[in-house]
């Protein structure tokens, strides 16, 4: 039977502080493709694995702008071009009256873009993920903290990476089959 290619090397830690310290050291050691798992959000962890920016805010902003323009132009087209109705002698193009719908559509489009953009960028829903091949990874939703170095990292080398992870004093180290 052909050995399955490795997805990465995973180290298990007991405390969030250990995980953040380990992630920082791995990042400083030059590992770029690393990730960390914990049962709850940890302040500073994202920065520690070198995570800089996510693009969900940008997607949300674009969604909001598109929504605002849609709302305004739709009303302009309805009230001033397609079916003009004289309301209280006000001009057909009465911008104050257009603002509430413009605002609502801005929020609606921004909200939908945020959800869909988040799903598109993080790849969810994801029916299969290799990290679950490690039985101990079940503890990641209880009280253990995991750091993984992906085999796609240019610096990845099964021996050197294992030695490096050993020096971080983890509770266990596992190879993650893909």
């Amino acid at each position: 039977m052909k050995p399955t290619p490795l997805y990465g090397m995973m180290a298990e830690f007991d405390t969030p502080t250990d995980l953040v310290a380990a992630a920082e050291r791995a990042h400083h050691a030059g590992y770029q493709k690393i990730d960390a798992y914990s049962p709850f959000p940890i302040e500073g962890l994202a920065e520690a694995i070198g995570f800089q920016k996510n693009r969900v805010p940008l997607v949300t902003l674009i969604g909001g702008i598109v929504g605002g323009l849609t709302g305004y132009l739709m009303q302009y087209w309805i009230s001033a071009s397609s079916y003009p109705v004289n309301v209280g002698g006000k001009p057909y193009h009465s911008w104050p009256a257009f603002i509430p719908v413009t605002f609502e559509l801005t929020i609606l489009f921004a909200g939908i873009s945020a959800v869909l953009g988040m799903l598109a960028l993080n790849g969810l829903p994801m029916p299969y993920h290799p990290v679950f091949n490690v039985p101990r990874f079940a503890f990641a939703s209880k009280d253990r903290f995991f750091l993984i170095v992906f085999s796609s990292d240019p610096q990845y080398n099964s021996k050197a990476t294992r030695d490096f992870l050993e020096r971080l004093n983890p509770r266990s180290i596992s190879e993650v089959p893909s």
Partner: protein
Amino acid sequence: MSATHMNPADLMAPPVTKTIQQRSLMIGLVFAVIAVAGAFVRPDEFFRGYLLAYMDWLGVTLGSMAILMIRHLTGGGWGVVIRRVLGAAMRCLPLMAFLFVPILFGLPRLYVWARPLDSITDKHLQSHLQEITKSYLSVHGFVIRAAIYLAIWNLLSFLLTKWSREQDQPGARDNSPRFKAVSGPGLILYAFTVSFAAIDWVMSIDPSWISTIYGLLILIGQLLSAMCFAVVVERILARYKPMSVWLRPSFVHDHGKWMLTFVMVWAYFSFSQWLIIWAGNLPEEITWYIRRLHGGWGGVGLLLALFHFAVPFIMLLSRSFKRDIGRLVWLAVGLLVMRWVDLLWIIEPNYSQTLSVTWADFVVSIAVGGIWLWFFFRNLNSLPLLSIYDPDAHEVLEPAHE
């Protein structure tokens, strides 16, 4: 670093606050002398400027009290780090009660309803005033209600301060349940009293005009003023120990989010009022806006739309901007100036059809501000900068991920 290992002296405000305190007092007194001298020469202009200055600085004071009560209900590190700053601003309430007295001397100059009815030439207004001065807008009623508002605010401030001081003693019992018990009803009381105060003190300048959202508009302005002021003070404190150790980007981020929220709610209320009155277009309502959009006041209105809403809103959308106290503080300063412009735009057009900003608008605002700041820094120095037995104090004292 835990609470038990702290030296009380390490928790105090840095010496620089004493310097600012003295300079504020000097500036305040110099301008107060000019203002008082001006009051004898140009009393009308003085009282208008005084009302503007009073409402502006009252906003920082009451807004701080409200944010402090919100913090007592929600908890969180963002609030612990500015809790004592908000508290010191809130404890300027006795000063604000004292500073209310001069307004009583200017009632007929400020409010048309406080003048003798015979002196009013407009018959329509005269008959309207005949009714409302009997029921609500009488000088007696005004004074009694003002005393009640100021008493309620001072009582809330007194209780919150007293328990906060008690909580600083080692081994004292946790006062958090008491804070919560007062803050919930306190916020409701604050909303009602500040609405009534806004109607009495500002809206009644034009007694034939009413807007139901007016009180909330003043209220949200106060919250914005207070959060901007807290950001300015935390910037000054963060140059020195101990605040330089405590203030984290995540707390600044939260303060920036509050600013964004208040800017948006202010815009939402302002626009709602405008939209409803614009859509109705009734003579007794629209006149308020006609005055404020013509004769040069329209430019001020545009200034407000741009720099009280649009520009701050866009800047505050940026995450990195909100986390950087060095940049956020300049927006906070700008918004504090815009709060003053907003109140100017609300108050002054009642007296002048064309754009007019008098000497008193500046001089009295600086005089009251100087004295207020002196009092504020005095308060700030009287208690430690951190309430170390606050249940959330560990968020400030300990590294984030423990």
